[in-house]
């Protein structure tokens, strides 16, 4: 790998303070540090550090998303790849522009946002909408707040919310029937014009009309829906990995699923006509995706453990209520955004309690 080292060394001068491309230094640094672990040494105690860095932290999320990406390729075809590429390209461009203007490092956060975003969109959504959505999400959801670590809302959800409000028709249609058989749609590029592929609605839409998709179809993902949300199996596998690595906090996930289940069971018992079966609702829609991959975003969610429980209960409960009592068929997005709004205040309550206890202890 000496030649690669040499290549970086030979162009390094261009990006130094007086070099021709000094403005692009963040790009050079990011590329170099992508290939080679940084040379930085500790300066003072502690003199040794844990091997975990933000790159690895984010890479772990991407690994956890892998089952779900593979499942979506199988069910919805190669167009998913195109959506991911567009999302990465546009989201990455926004991130790079801001890094260059701010003269800060390029942050790895967009690697996760850029992958999560296409996974929560309808699979036949026009590619330009994917680009517009991610640009809005990264720009307004993250960069305007000061970049990764300072955002109030989950950027991917901000982007999706923007599309849902700006292009409601496109976001409510553009579903694709899942592929089947050995290869599924792995060899196809199914889009809105593909005759046999277009589907009119998702299981949650049908459920409003009293038609429930089979549980095994929901579990394996053999239903129409947003790109990455259909296969409960893939989501559980990735989610379990995420919880095992402790990148996502189990409290949030458990609280969401528990509050959803408990509230759902109670309301189902009280009004069986209005509320669908809980087990079915757990697997349908984007509840699992939201619980494992979006609500657990450490930046936009609460940090203290008691607040995580409260946040999860709020998100789970609100999702259930939106799904069953409002005109919307799915409520995960709004529930998590609402949770993001509540997160700082939940944390503040916990912090105040702790401060009081601390003062009491002396």
């Amino acid at each position: 790998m000496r030649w690669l080292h040499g290549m970086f060394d030979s162009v390094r001068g261009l990006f130094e303070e007086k070099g021709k491309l000094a403005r692009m230094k963040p790009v050079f640094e990011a590329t170099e540090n992508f290939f080679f672990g940084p040379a930085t040494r500790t300066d003072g105690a502690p003199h040794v550090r844990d091997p975990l860095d933000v790159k690895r932290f984010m890479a772990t999320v991407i690994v956890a998303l892998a089952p779900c990406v593979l499942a979506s390729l199988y069910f919805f075809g190669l167009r998913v790849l195109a959506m991911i590429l567009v999302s990465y390209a546009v989201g990455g461009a926004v991130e790079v522009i801001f890094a260059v203007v701010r003269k800060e490092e390029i942050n790895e956060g967009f690697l996760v946002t850029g992958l999560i975003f296409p996974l929560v969109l309808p699979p036949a959504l026009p590619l330009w909408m994917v680009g517009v959505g991610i640009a809005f999400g990264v720009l307004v959801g993250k960069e305007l707040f000061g970049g990764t670590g300072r955002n109030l809302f989950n950027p991917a959800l901000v982007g999706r919310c923007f599309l849902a409000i700006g292009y409601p028709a496109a976001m409510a249609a553009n579903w694709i029937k899942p592929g089947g058989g050995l290869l599924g749609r792995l060899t196809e590029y199914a889009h809105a014009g593909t005759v046999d592929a277009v589907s009119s609605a998702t299981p949650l839409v049908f459920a409003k009309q009293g038609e429930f998709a089979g549980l095994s179809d929901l579990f394996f993902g053999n239903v129409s829906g947003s790109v990455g949300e259909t296969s409960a199996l893939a989501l559980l596998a990735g989610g379990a990995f995420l919880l095992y690595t402790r990148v996502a906090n189990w409290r949030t996930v458990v609280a969401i699923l528990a509050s959803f289940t408990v509230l759902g069971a109670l309301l189902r018992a009280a009004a069986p006509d209005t509320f669908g079966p809980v087990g079915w609702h757990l697997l349908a829609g984007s509840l699992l995706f939201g619980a494992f991959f979006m609500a657990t975003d450490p930046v936009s969610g609460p940090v203290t453990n008691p607040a995580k429980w409260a946040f999860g209960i709020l998100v789970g409960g609100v999702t259930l209520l939106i799904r069953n009592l409002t005109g919307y068929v799915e409520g995960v997005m709004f529930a998590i955004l609402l949770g993001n709004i509540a997160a700082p205040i939940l944390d503040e309550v916990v912090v105040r309690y702790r401060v009081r206890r601390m003062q009491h202890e002396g």
Partner: protein
Amino acid sequence: MRFHGGCNIRLAGRPSDLVDVLPEPEVLRLPLQSCRFDFKEICVKEGEEVHPGQALAKDLDHFAVPLLAPRAGTVRLEEAEGHITLVDIHKEPEEPYRPEEPLEHAPRDMDSVGKKRYKLLALGAWQFFRDAYSGRLPNPFGVPSAVIVSTLALEPFLARGDVQIRKRLASFTRGLEHLQSLLEYQPIYLVLPDIGSGFAQRVRDTIRGYAWAQLVGIPLRYGLDHSAAIARGLGLKRNGEGPVWALDAAGALAVDRALTLSLPSTVRIVSLGGPAAEKPRHLKAMPGYPLSDMVETRKAESSTRIIAGGVFTGSEVPESQLGLDAECAGLTLLREHEERELLSFMRPGFDRASYSRCFLSAVRGAFIENLTTALRGERRACVSCGYCEEVCPARIMPYLIHKHLYQEGYEEAERIGVDRCLRCGLCSYVCPSKIELRGQFIDAQELLEQERPAEEVAS
């Protein structure tokens, strides 16, 4: 006692139980500074012949703690800057303590307890005492509310209590008795590991008869052995009836030596460990012992960082420091980071020991990774992963304090307990964003200390 946080890292080069005696030095270079003290007041003249135990210099800001000559020799003041050099070193029998009259820097008309305490100060035993919360030197003539004697030093690597007192258990317990004689009714807490090691059992058996000594067992997790964490766990208030004194095994031995034998404590047991140490072990050494003789010959590799203290809290020994300082309890040697690994963040990481479980190593048992001074990542904004709160033995929220300090919200940071930080360094160690939390908190503590009204400090 309830415990929170704490974390052990496995660092290669754990000093063995062996205690090596270093050869007699030809020259001693005693640094005039150590981590707490600044011996500004020089008490000897150029060319003066000193006897062992004679005060070479004093720190007038800290109750005139003396820097004692470990051996007889001739003073050279100009030979090395910031050091007192002793040449023509020879071993002379140490002369028993004779108090000079009148006693300098001490309250008038002292009772016998006061005189004993003065003796501790003059014989170099007092510098082993610290305020459990602030870590500073307590007033030798003050009245503590409790005393904590800890046999644990869990930071990798410091001289371990069990190694120090294994062969001197009788002296250790006698030291505790002396300590008790300095107090009225205040309790002495003796901190032991909460495991059934043979050593702990022996100490328990020996101490059983003493009603005034209470045994405290704590888990063997670094961070929990900090005196402030123990004091807080015992419910001893920071601003209670008096300061809480803390001392380690070496301190109890020094008390015994001073009050039983009336001899100064100059030679101490120092650990020499770390991944770059060729033969990690304990050494009997004295302040001023040339570092080059202690370390260079044992250094495994050329580019090595020498740390006075452990890897979490120690400080790099500056080039200009030539001899062992008066407070050093251990030297840790680390290889400087040099190699850059290709696609390092993508590697499975079977060989990387991490607090998180983001590496394949999570599936294997504990092992020792060869650590260097690498930062192992790039500095980023906090992603609120919460690891720092999990490991914090002080039960504070480092990420939150960091966020306030980032906006210069010092008052907010104080409100949520930045002054409770133990400076253990665990938060900085686990932080994936590589934020220098420990350094920021120390700066904030010092700033808040300066701003505190003078009368509060006096009380």
